[in-house]
Structure formats: structure tokens, C-alpha cells
């Protein structure tokens, strides 16, 4: 088991194991929670009395922008990714997640991006446009680097969030223990699967929106400038297409924590497992159809308002189902009071208030008054604090023994709870009325004498109590616990797999990979813990001193592969640093440094893949116990790498569809799009580009076949011709708008065409690098006819490139013909 020992000394920071990286990640997320909370405290001090001069208007703008952004991007989303990296493998009796280096990379990217953004306020340079960054305020009325930091910095963090989502999805689909069929998956994993899938489709619209806004800021491409055919409303669509699902991405995994905690203390399996899973999926679908309720006062037609009002109400139903499943579980079982359950109860009471005020603001008529006032501030904090923070604290008390084998203090936990619960309600209940009495959001001060003083002072006092509660909580987490006794094993007598862990835990997780036939194996499977401890299940030892884990099939969890996973490395840190440069340098308009940083980042990532992926094992297969033998190497759609590529490309194609959404938005809403006075890219060049790119795609598929048939000559020739076709494809696509002298600064139409062809060309360029990589792998003997995962995944990538090119050409060449 030496393979799993973390490195010591300064090399400790090269560790990639989930239990170490997950701990760093969770700790950092809590740090950002505290930072965001302190910003909130500054705002409450400023608003305690009318006409206060504690913060200037400018600094107040920086503080509220950063508070919202930090809480959403650096706390609410990453907390679930961090906790999942930390605990998900244990919940599924796995040793690791399938791409440990990707987790580590995600963590380092998150650290760099987060520090960059939070640090800005100490230089008085933080963004001031509010967390939803509406242009034209943020495009043409916010000089300085604040808005650029927001757009580029958070895009970088979103990339890291997508990386974590890929990791978690593949982990849940492919790394479950044998026998954990799809209806036995722990509810936490179900929720995380749903939330991670939502990230894939919710974050790309924002990345696209940020790209458009940054192009407008940096290069004057007029996507949101009404004077040149742009439209500020497009940003709101793209932002809320992200922003509303985002709320559920924060909320669902927290419900998932509750779903793990409640059965333990009710001492009975969860009631309505299938209902909960279907509700989570239903919520996810609905949440993509609600975004317009953030835009009810933008002057949209009544029919639109009514439709989105109804959809917004509908989401209350799956939420209600989940809440009642928990209540029913408590009813069926015998409740044992505990600190985690106290927080669950407080969270429920608070969240239901937020849910009900949510139903109220979803009624468009009432929304006309409540929108953009402190009523909404009260509503969203009830939802997020009740629905996310209370469950997260409950989980902190519940899961803490898994981290270092100690229990947190019951006394401090209860003290913190009452401070938090009272502080929360004193702060936010009056705020509903503050809003309806006419206090808009994001005001740094308010006049005396219109009935706002008493309410605001009450809220500020409440905020101090809330802060005291967090202080007690932090002390309980951070206080030295050397003298506390170790917690007993499975201290809460839970039934789920993560409580197999010895106290304190081991880096390899479980002694062996168990076979599962129940949702609560510790309750239902006799002698389960003993059998695990004695190594009677799968893969009890790592004979070759390599980190290994079991890959199983998606539906039935049948063993498919023994996956060798890479160990500690600094390459993830280096990749994150240089990729960070690609996002950070353009903030300061240092485009050459950005290019250099990009090339180095590419080098790092290629080095990482070359040495860390698709390694050819010394033997074909391995016996994992119980007479089961599985291969050490698989390619194609059973492999984790294929799934990772598939999932990543779904996110990528969603970003592309968001750009197309922009094109159609202008096309349907603006009569002068495309304007008659501006020539389009024509037909010849785009079609030439399309044919060349499709040829490159076809040749890639042929090369994959020739490699498999052991025809190296044809393989190299195929790759060579594919690269040449792809290069010509890029040239032809760019030549269209270039030959037509389309000027992207003149009007939004040429800007849109240029964006589509550049996006497509960049994807082809990445495809070329991949083709060359495959040729080099074959040449170096790292890819053979049998071990062909590289070309197999590259072909998958090219399928998506083919779709992208086809859609781009259909739009830029075809749509002008319809005028």
C-alpha cells in the first residue's frame, strides 16, 4: 500500500490523491466563504444608518460585486465539487476518482483565479458592475481593469469547475463498486451527477457571454452596443441561462447532503428514493426553463411573462416532493436528536421561507414591485443560506470524523446554531419590508425619513450575530484537537459506505473494493465491515506498487477494467499556472505574455498527457479476486477517457450553441440583421472550408482504422493529409470574412461572423495538435494497434469539430441567403 502514501516535505504539494486535494479544496472554499462574509459585514455596517460615510460609493460597489461573485463562484458551486472530491469515492467504496490529476489541476486553477479576483479589492481595483455585470454599464461605462478581471478571472474558474464536473460525472458513471447498480447509487451521488451535468450546460453560456463582453471591452466588437446593432438584452439572456440553473447547482448537492444525513438519524432507509431521484432530475430540467423570471421588468411581452411565471412556479413541486420525502423518512423512523439534524431542521425552516417568497416573486405581477429591491435580497439569502449553508454546516458536523477521526464539539455546534439561526432571521426577515418600502438593491446609502432606518439597523445588528455564529463554528473546526479522543468507527451508526472508514482514515480509502447489494450495506449486508477489513472483496492489494482502481459498467456496475491512475506530480500545478496566465495577462492587455504563457501551458498539458495517460501496461489483464480477471487497458466507449472527452465536448458544443443563440437572437429580434449594407462572407470560401474540414475528419477516422489494422504507412499518410486538409480548412474559413472586408468593429453582424469562424478555426487548430500527437505517440511506441485510446479519443473530438464546422458554415453562408 506504499503506492498511496502522500509524498512528504515540499513535495507534499505535488499530491493528487482525492482525500488530500479534496481537503485543500474544501479548506480554500471555506476561506472564500469567510472572505465573502466579511464583505457582507462591511455592507451591513455601511447601511446601519442613513447617510453613512463608512464606505464610499465606489468602494461599496466593489464590495457588493465581489460579495456576490465570491459567494456564487468561489463558495456555492465549488463547495459541492470540493466535498465531492473529498468524500464521493468513499461513498462509492472506491479508492479514488478516475482523473486525480484533473482534480489537482482544477484545485490549482481555482486557487490562482480566486486569489487574483479577491486580491483586486486590496488594490482598489475590484469590479464594480455587480455580480450580474449588465452591459452597457460594464462594457462602456466601467474603465479600469475591474470588469476584465471579472470576465477573464471567472472564465478561468468556470473552466476549473467544468474540469471538476467531468471528473465527478465519469467517477459516478464508471467507478462504482461491483453490484452497485443504478438503483443502488447513494442519493448524494445521484444529486452530484445531476448537478455536474447541469454545470456542463449552464456554465458554457456564461463563458460565451463573458467572451462576447470581453471582446467588446478589449477590441470594440459591438455585441451589446445598441448604436451598432448590438443588444444589451442578449447578455441578460446568456447570463441568466447560466444564472438560474446555477442556483440549483448550488442547492441540489446540499439537499444531497441532507439526503445522506436524515436516514442516519431517523435510523431507517430514505423514503421515496425513486421520487427523490426523479425530482432532482426534474428540477434540473425545469431550471433551464426559468431564466426569464430574472428579466420580468425588461419590457418583455405579457405572454412570455406568463409562461415563465408558470414554469417558475412548477419548480416548487419537485422541491416539495424532496422535502416531504425527508419529513416522511423522519416519520417512519425514530429520530435521534443531534447537531447535524439541528442544522437540517434550521435549514428546512429557513429554506421554506425562501421557497415561498420565491413563489411570490415568480408571479410576474408582484415581481414588478419586488424586483431589484431588498425583498429579493431577503429571498435569495433565505434560499441560499437555508438551502446551502445550513446543510453544509450540518455536513461539516456529520462528516468531520472522516477527515481526521475526531468529532466536533456538540456544545459549540449548538451555540453556533442558535447564533446563526437567530442572526439570520434578525438580518433577513425585516429586509422583505425594507425592500417593499422602496429600498432598491445595490444602493450604498438611503435617505432618512422614509421609514428605512429601523429596519436597516435591525438587519445590521442581526448580521453581527450571524457573524458571531460563524466565528464559533470556525473556532470549533480550527481549534487544536490533539487531546480529543478518536471518534469510534461509524460514530453515527450510519448505513452508507463512507462510514466503512477506519478512524482516522487511510490514503487508499477502503481496504478492498466491496460488492454491494443494498443502498445501506452497513445496515443490510451481514458481516460487511469484517469482510472488507479482511480483504475478502476485490483488489485487496496493489502488488505492482501502483495506484489502481476498479472501473465498472454504467448501468449494472460490472467490473470492466483495473485502471492505473497517475500519482503525485507538479505538472498539474504548472499547467494551472500557465493556463492562468492566458486568462490573467489579457486583463492587463499583455497579449504577448498571454501568447507565451499559452504555448507553455500547451507544452505542460502535452507533457502531462504524454506521461500520464494511455500508458501501455506490462501485462494484458489482472486478477482482482473472486476469480474475476479484468483488462488493464481498454479504449473506446467503455473507457473513462472516452467518457471524459465526450462530456467535455458536450460542454464545448454548448458554448458554441450559445454563440449561435446570439446570432439567432439578433436575427429574430432585429429587422436589420444581417444589415443590407454589409456584405456577408459569401458561399465559396465557407463551403471550401467545410469540405476541407470534413476531409480532415474523414481522414482521422481512416487513420484510426489503419492504425488498428497495423498499417503504419497508411496511418502516417492519413494523419499527414488530415493535417494538411485541416490547415487549408482554417485558411478557407478565415478567408470568407477577410475577402469580404468585414469589419467587426463596424456592426454586430461582422463581429458575429468573425467570432463564429475564429471559434471554429481554433477548434480545428486544436484538432491538428491532437492529430500530430497521435502520430508522435505511434512513432514513440506509446500507441499501437491494440493500445489505441489516443486516436480513439481524438476521433471523438473530431466528430464534434465536424458538427461545429457544419453549423458555422450553414449559418454564415446560408442565413444571409434567407434575407
Amino acid at each position, binding site marked *: 500500500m506504499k503506492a498511496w502514501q502522500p509524498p512528504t516535505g515540499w513535495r507534499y504539494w505535488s499530491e493528487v490523491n482525492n482525500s488530500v486535494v479534496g481537503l485543500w479544496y474544501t479548506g480554500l472554499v471555506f476561506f472564500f466563504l469567510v472572505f465573502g462574509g466579511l464583505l457582507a459585514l462591511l455592507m451591513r455596517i455601511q447601511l446601519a444608518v442613513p447617510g453613512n460615510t463608512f464606505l464610499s*460609493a465606489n468602494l461599496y460597489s466593489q464590495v457588493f460585486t465581489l460579495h456576490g461573485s465570491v459567494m456564487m463562484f468561489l463558495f456555492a458551486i465549488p463547495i459541492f465539487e470540493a466535498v465531492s472530491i473529498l468524500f464521493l469515492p468513499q461513498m462509492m467504496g472506491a479508492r479514488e476518482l478516475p482523473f486525480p490529476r484533473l482534480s489537482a489541476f482544477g484545485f490549482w486553477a481555482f486557487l490562482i483565479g480566486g486569489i487574483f479576483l479577491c486580491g483586486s479589492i486590496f488594490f482598489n481595483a475590484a469590479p464594480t458592475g455587480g455580480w450580474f455585470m449588465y452591459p452597457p454599464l460594464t462594457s462602456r461605462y466601467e474603465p479600469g481593469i475591474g470588469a476584465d478581471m471579472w470576465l477573464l478571472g471567472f472564465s478561468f474558474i468556470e473552466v476549473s469547475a467544468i474540469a471538476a464536473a467531468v471528473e465527478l460525472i465519469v467517477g459516478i458513471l464508471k467507478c462504482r463498486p461491483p453490484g452497485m447498480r443504478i438503483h443502488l447509487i447513494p442519493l448524494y451521488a445521484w444529486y452530484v451527477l445531476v448537478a455536474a451535468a447541469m454545470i456542463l450546460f449552464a456554465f458554457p453560456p456564461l463563458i460565451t457571454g463573458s467572451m462576447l463582453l470581453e471582446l467588446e471591452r478589449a477590441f470594440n466588437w459591438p455585441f451589446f452596443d445598441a448604436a451598432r446593432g448590438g443588444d444589451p*438584452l442578449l447578455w441578460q439572456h446568456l447570463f441568466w441561462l447560466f444564472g438560474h440553473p446555477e442556483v440549483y447547482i448550488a442547492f441540489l448537492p446540499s439537499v444531497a447532503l441532507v439526503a445522506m444525513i436524515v436516514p442516519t438519524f431517523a435510523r431507517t432507509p430514505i423514503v421515496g428514493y425513486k421520487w427523490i431521484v426523479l425530482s432532482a432530475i426534474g428540477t434540473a430540467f425545469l431550471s433551464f426553463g426559468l431564466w426569464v423570471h430574472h428579466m420580468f421588468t*425588461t419590457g418583455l411581452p405579457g405572454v412570455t*411573462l406568463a409562461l415563465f411565471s408558470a414554469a417558475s412556479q412548477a419548480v416548487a413541486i419537485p422541491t416539495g416532493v424532496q422535502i416531504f420525502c425527508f419529513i*416522511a423518512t*423522519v416519520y417512519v423512523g425514530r429520530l435521534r436528536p443531534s447537531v447535524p439534524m439541528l442544522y437540517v431542521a434550521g435549514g428546512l425552516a429557513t429554506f421554506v421561507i425562501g421557497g415561498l417568497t420565491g*413563489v411570490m416573486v415568480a*408571479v410576474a405581477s408582484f415581481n414588478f414591485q419586488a424586483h431589484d429591491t431588498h425583498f429579493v435580497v431577503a429571498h435569495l439569502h433565505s434560499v441560499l443560506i437555508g438551502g446551502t449553508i445550513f446543510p453544509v454546516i450540518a455536513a461539516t458536523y456529520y462528516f468531520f470524523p472522516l477527515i481526521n477521526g475526531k468529532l466536533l464539539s456538540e456544545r459549540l455546534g449548538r451555540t453556533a446554531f442558535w447564533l446563526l439561526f437567530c442572526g439570520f432571521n434578525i438580518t433577513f426577515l425585516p429586509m422583505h419590508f425594507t425592500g417593499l418600502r422602496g429600498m432598491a438593491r445595490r444602493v450604498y446609502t438611503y435617505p432618512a425619513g422614509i421609514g428605512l432606518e429601523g429596519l436597516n439597523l435591525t438587519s445590521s445588528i442581526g448580521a453581527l450575530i450571524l457573524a458571531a455564529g460563524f466565528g464559533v463554528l470556525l473556532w470549533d473546526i480550527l481549534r487544536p484537537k490533539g487531546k480529543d479522543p478518536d471518534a469510534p468507527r461509524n460514530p453515527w451508526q450510519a448505513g452508507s459506505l463512507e462510514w466503512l472508514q477506519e478512524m482516522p482514515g487511510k490514503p487508499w480509502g477502503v481496504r478492498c473494493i466491496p460488492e454491494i447489494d443494498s443502498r445501506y450495506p452497513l445496515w443490510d449486508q451481514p458481516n460487511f465491515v469484517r469482510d472488507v477489513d479482511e480483504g475478502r472483496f476485490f483488489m485487496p492489494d496493489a502488488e505492482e506498487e501502483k495506484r489502481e482502481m476498479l472501473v465498472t459498467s454504467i448501468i449494472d456496475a460490472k467490473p470492466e477494467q483495473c485502471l492505473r491512475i497517475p500519482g503525485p506530480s507538479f505538472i498539474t500545478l504548472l499547467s494551472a499556472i500557465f493556463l492562468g496566465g492566458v486568462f490573467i495577462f489579457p486583463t492587463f492587455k499583455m497579449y504577448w505574455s498571454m501568447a507565451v504563457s499559452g504555448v507553455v501551458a500547451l507544452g505542460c498539458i502535452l507533457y502531462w498527457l504524454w506521461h500520464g495517460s494511455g500508458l501501455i501496461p506490462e501485462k494484458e489483464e489482472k486478477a482482482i479476486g473472486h476469480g474475476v480477471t479484468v483488462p488493464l487497458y481498454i479504449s473506446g466507449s467503455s473507457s473513462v477517457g472516452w467518457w471524459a472527452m465526450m462530456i467535455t465536448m458536450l460542454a464545448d458544443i454548448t458554448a458554441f450553441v450559445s454563440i449561435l443563440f446570439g446570432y439567432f437572437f439578433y436575427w429574430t429580434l432585429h429587422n436589420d440583421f444581417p444589415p443590407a449594407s454589409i456584405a456577408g462572407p459569401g458561399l465559396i470560401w465557407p463551403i471550401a472550408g467545410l469540405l476541407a474540414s470534413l476531409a480532415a475528419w474523414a481522414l482521422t477516422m481512416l487513420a484510426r482504422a489503419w492504425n488498428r489494422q497495423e498499417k503504419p504507412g497508411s496511418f502516417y499518410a492519413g494523419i499527414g493529409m488530415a493535417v494538411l486538409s485541416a490547415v487549408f480548412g482554417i485558411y478557407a474559413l478565415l478567408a470568407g470574412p477577410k475577402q469580404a472586408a468585414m469589419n467587426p468593429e463596424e456592426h454586430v453582424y461582422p463581429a458575429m461572423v468573425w467570432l463564429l469562424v475564429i471559434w471554429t478555426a481554433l477548434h480545428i487548430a486544436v484538432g491538428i495538435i491532437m492529430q500530430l500527437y497521435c502520430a508522435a505517440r505511434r512513432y514513440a511506441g506509446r500507441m499501437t494497434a491494440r493500445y489505441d485510446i489516443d486516436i480513439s479519443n481524438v476521433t471523438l473530438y473530431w466528430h464534434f469539430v465536424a458538427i461545429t464546422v457544419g453549423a458555422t458554415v450553414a449559418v454564415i453562408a446560408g442565413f444571409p441567403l434567407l434575407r
Partner: protein
Amino acid sequence: MTLRRHTVVATTLLWTGCGGPQSALSPAGLEAERIASLFWWMTAGAGVVWLSVILLAVFAAKKRGTGDRSREGNWIIFGGAATPAVVLAVLLIFGLSMLPDLLGVAPKNTLRVHVTAEQWWWRFRYEVPGRRPFETANELRLPVGEPVEFLLHSSNVIHSFWIPSLGGKMDVMPGRVNRLVLHPTTTGTYLGTCAEFCGIGHAKMAMQAIVVPKEAFGPWVDTMQRAVKP
């Protein structure tokens, strides 16, 4: 001077209740009245729902569990799905039925005011039927009992036009002209503000709407007309 005294009196009278001169809960216009009554109905309903959920949860926690799972579907179907569906359907019908009125089109010959949101003040351009247009800044004067149609313009950033006592808000978007119709029902001075963050002066982008008796409005228009060169 009388104006200021008027304001002070109105302020002290109103802010002790739910109100204040900038409160959606002390309505002085048709739209605000409808929304306020919707709010109180919904709040009462929400209170009942909240209390029911909490009481059910307490009941479930206090009851010594039997392990009997035969009725578990009832909790989920009735508590989680059916009841909310019925309540929400009623709420939707009730809440959305007032949308057509709130988004209503003004009849012909309505008083029109072009609102231009500047950074950070309000420019009001009056179009009284049959009269020359004239402008005011940050101060509206409206005849009680008459509809008024606001046409909202911005050439800089997004703002939102909001006089809580008279009705809901409407965003002011560059590149679009949004419309809002209000019906003041009570004379008095009401405060309004910008509700969409519009930059450093957002908090101070205030206005007042003085709702006057119909017979006082005509003379005011005459006064304003005399100030405008023909």
C-alpha cells in the same frame, strides 16, 4: 414652502404604518393597490403553508416511528406534489389575471411623459394633448384619477423607473423604448428611484411624483408652457 410642508406632513403620517412616501405597501395608484393586495394575500397564504410544513415536520419528529412504510406514498403525493400543484395553480390564475391590466395600453389622448434616464437624474418631457411639449427634471406632476403613459428612453446604461406607491417598475433599456402606464388615485407626494444599478450615482438617482387634483394640473401646465419659448 407649502410643498415642503406637504411632504413633511405626508411623511410623518405614513411612515409609522407600513408606509412611507416610497413604499409599495402604502399604495396611491391603481397598479400599486392591486399588487399590494396580491402581496398581502400571498403573504397570508405563505404563512399558512410555512406553518403547516413546520408542524408536519415537528409531528413527524415527535412521533415514535413504527417503521410502517405502507403510507409513505401519501406524504409524497399529497404533501409534496398534489397540494403545491393546487395552491400554485390558484395563485397563478389569481396573480396572472392582473397582468393584462398592469401591462395595459393607454387610451388615446392620454397624458404622455417621455422619461429619459441620464447618469444620474431623470429628464421628463411632457406631451399634453394639444399643448407644446416641455421638460422637467426629477419632478413629475400628475393629475389624480387620470392614466399617464411613460415612454422610457436611455442613451447610456440600463436604469429602472420605479415609483413604488404608484406601481411596479420598468427597466429603461438603451436601444428600446419601454412603456409603463400608471393610474394615480390619491393626491400627495411620492418618491421614486432608479432600481437597476447604473453606476456610482445609482443610490442618489431619486425623483418625486406630486399627484395633484385635476383642476390644479391645467394651471401648472400653463405655468410650464410660459417658461418654454414658442
